[in-house]
């Protein structure tokens, strides 16, 4: 009674995965840097601990983030995760209350019906059986959705789902088999003993009417145990390893550990915490607008996990950050990709099965990289100024933006110096995006030197790409402001007087300004001050990438145009008079694919500056004059 041979696969699998996860996580903990270790320890005994528990409940079990995006998909994930969790918890209670003794081994709870076939005939046990059947039905409904999603992702609101490796597929099949085999095993046993509730009891009775259920039942118990066992054994080398690892990741993140700028055990944990759910694929503009389906974050992480040569995948990304925004696990996908770009090429090799289980992961050797050198740059002696205006390379290609900025600053009476009027030096961000941080540092030093020497209090830039790097990688005394922030400041101070333009406009958040630097409010405040701002379909943290991104080194111009056209279509759904952006690169990219007028926020504001009275009079005279000519 106490031991059945069929429980062996389950037991072996369970103890294997428990021990394996504990050892793996211990090694990850050991490899953390000293400060991160301290953070984690402090987090474990403080407030972050409760936050983590809450997050585990809300995200790992209920999948709240996915629910918000798409309720059906959320239900699917929740029914499998939360349903299974409840089944285990209540199964354990059931075995504890109704079994022969307390504190049973796990197999007694999982295979409870086999050990207590007559259970659930009357009273409380009967109600409890209904509850257990309900839970099983809950999971099975989710499973049905999962199967539908795998074959027709569109029905589930996904544009595309992940393509899996063979280990993932076997693990997936074994996971799918677990619940139907449990249903059948319980039904056969219930049918033989006339017990069970609405699901297992009725199905059992139906089966018993034409099948020798008592003889068949053990086979399904074997199948149930085997599918569990196979699933557990494949866990460490499949995507399902995210189940234990995600819990650890949540503790690490809430303790304040961040990705940093090189591979560490935190990036390793993030790599294994990815569940390949495919939500990043579905969100990626390169996938649905440009038809590139093999470079998304799920595949990037998968390549990283299997130590493949993913240089092409790593480079082919717009770095817009939309996937990071929707990732239900909260993996820092942008920084991870940048780390990998810095690493350079890996030699491609297929991991052997033994290596996949290996606790110590050796990364393949990294090859020497080409280097740039900017020793030709001559140090300048700038004039002193309180406000320094740095247009940026891209803004030099949109002279209208520079003219507008000059007009705005002159009108507001700002005394400024134009730092790169005669062509400056690149801010360094494009190099960083290409993974060349050391070279970028040379440019950063050059620019920093000029900014420090000028003694500026405020550094205004018109390019979000520059803005991000000025804020994050420069050590400056000056306050760095994007021009939308600066204009907002001028309006609030009252030094910039503006009229109202009777126009309906839509605003496009540039990636580097919005998601990259968290500036959402200021541009909107400025625009609403001078025109009527319409809301668009995808905005703020889910705004689209224009497709021109410097983050992608390899994307062809044709594909870029496809992304741009798709983005403009979405942004102009409400047919605004003008589409406003705050980035010269977005402007340049959009102009090529649409007839809608695209303006920078500075141009919009400059147009709202009332003309001096004398000029208005001059214009009226000219009009009258031209009218007189046409009349005669």
């Amino acid at each position, binding site marked *: 009674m106490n031991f059945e041979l069929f429980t062996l696969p389950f037991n072996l699998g369970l103890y294997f995965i428990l021990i394996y996860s504990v050892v793996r996580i211990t090694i990850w903990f050991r490899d953390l840097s000293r400060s991160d270790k301290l953070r984690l320890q402090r987090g474990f005994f403080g407030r972050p601990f409760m936050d983590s528990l809450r997050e585990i409940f809300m995200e790992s079990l209920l999948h709240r983030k996915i629910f918000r995006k798409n309720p059906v998909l959320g239900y699917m994930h929740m029914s499998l995760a939360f349903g299974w969790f409840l089944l285990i918890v209540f199964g354990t209670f059931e075995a504890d209350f109704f079994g022969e003794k307390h504190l049973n081994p796990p197999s007694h709870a999982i295979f409870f019906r086999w050990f207590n076939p007559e259970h659930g005939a009357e009273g409380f046990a009967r109600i409890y059986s209904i509850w257990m059947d309900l839970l099983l039905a809950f999971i099975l409904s989710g499973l049905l959705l999962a199967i539908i999603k795998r074959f027709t992702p569109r029905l589930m609101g996904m544009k595309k789902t992940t393509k899996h490796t063979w280990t993932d597929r076997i693990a997936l099949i074994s996971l799918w088999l677990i619940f139907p085999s449990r249903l059948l095993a319980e039904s056969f046993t219930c049918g033989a003993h006339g017990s069970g509730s609405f699901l297992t009891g009725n199905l059992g009775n139906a089966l018993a009417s034409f099948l020798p259920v008592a003889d068949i039942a053990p086979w399904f118990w074997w199948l149930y145990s085997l599918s569990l066992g196979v699933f557990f054994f494949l866990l460490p080398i499949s995507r399902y390893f995210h189940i234990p690892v995600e819990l650890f990741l949540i503790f690490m993140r809430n303790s304040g550990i961040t990705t940093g700028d090189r591979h560490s055990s935190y990036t390793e944990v993030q790599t294994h915490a990815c569940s390949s759910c495919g939500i990043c694929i579905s969100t990626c503009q390169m996938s649905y607008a440009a038809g590139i389906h093999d470079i998304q974050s799920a595949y990037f992480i998968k390549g990283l996990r299997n130590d493949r040569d993913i240089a092409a995948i790593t480079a082919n990304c717009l770095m817009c950050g939309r996937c990071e925004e929707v990732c239900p696990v909260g993996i820092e996908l942008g920084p991870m990709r940048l780390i990998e770009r810095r690493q350079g090429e890996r030699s491609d090799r297929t991991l052997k099965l033994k290596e996949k289980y290996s606790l110590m992961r050796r990364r393949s050797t990294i090859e*020497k*990289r*080409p*280097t*740039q*050198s*900017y020793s*030709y*740059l*001559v140090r300048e002696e700038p004039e002193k100024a309180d406000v320094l205006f740095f247009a940026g*390379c*891209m803004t*030099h*290609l949109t002279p209208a933006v520079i003219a507008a900025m000059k007009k705005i600053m002159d009108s507001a009476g700002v005394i400024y110096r134009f730092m790169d009027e*005669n*062509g*400056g*030096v*690149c801010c360094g961000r*494009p*190099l960083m995006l*290409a993974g*060349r941080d050391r070279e970028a540092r040379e*440019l950063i030093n050059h620019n920093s030197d000029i900014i420090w020497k000028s003694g500026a209090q405020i550094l205004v830039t018109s390019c979000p790409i520059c803005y991000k790097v000025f804020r994050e990688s420069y050590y400056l005394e000056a306050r760095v402001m994007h021009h939308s922030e600066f204009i907002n400041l001028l309006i609030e101070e009252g030094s910039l007087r503006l009229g109202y333009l009777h126009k309906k406009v839509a605003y496009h958040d540039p990636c580097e300004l919005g998601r990259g630097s968290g500036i959402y409010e200021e541009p909107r405040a400025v625009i609403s001050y001078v025109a009527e701002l319409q809301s668009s379909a995808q905005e703020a943290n889910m705004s689209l990438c224009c497709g*021109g991104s*410097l983050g992608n*080194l*390899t*994307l*062809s*111009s*044709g594909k870029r145009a496809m992304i741009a056209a798709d983005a403009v279509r979405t942004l102009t759904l409400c047919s605004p008079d003008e589409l406003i952006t705050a980035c010269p*690169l977005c402007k*340049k990219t959009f102009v090529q694919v649409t007839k809608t007028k695209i303006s920078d926020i500075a141009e919009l504001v400059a147009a709202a500056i009332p003309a001096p009275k004398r000029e208005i009079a001059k214009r009226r005279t000219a009009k009258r004059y031209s009218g007189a000519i046409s009349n005669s």
Partner: protein
Amino acid sequence: MRVTQSNKFGFTINRSRLIDYDSSDRKVREYVTLREPSFRLCFACGGCTATCTAGQHTSFNLRRMNTFIRRGEIEPLREEVKRCMLCGKCLLVCPRGVNTRNVVAAAAEAIVKLERNEL
């Protein structure tokens, strides 16, 4: 100046227009074209060079660099390729849609690979 047949007839060949097939190495061109097929689209208009940020500080010239790659002149290319800042202005002005940033990146990689005899 090399003695060629044309010299005898009073014609000279401009040094910069001379391709020396003994010293040229086409492997870099092949690698760059493989990595960035749009490299072939370049018709040497020079728009990239006119707008270049690095070009304002040094003699860096993307159009000339492309010629070096095409002709397989490795020695001048080695220095030239290091000067680019990858800022991407050339990408936006290119009328042919050449992915110029990747051309520079691929050329730099090709040089490193050449040194390791991997091309």
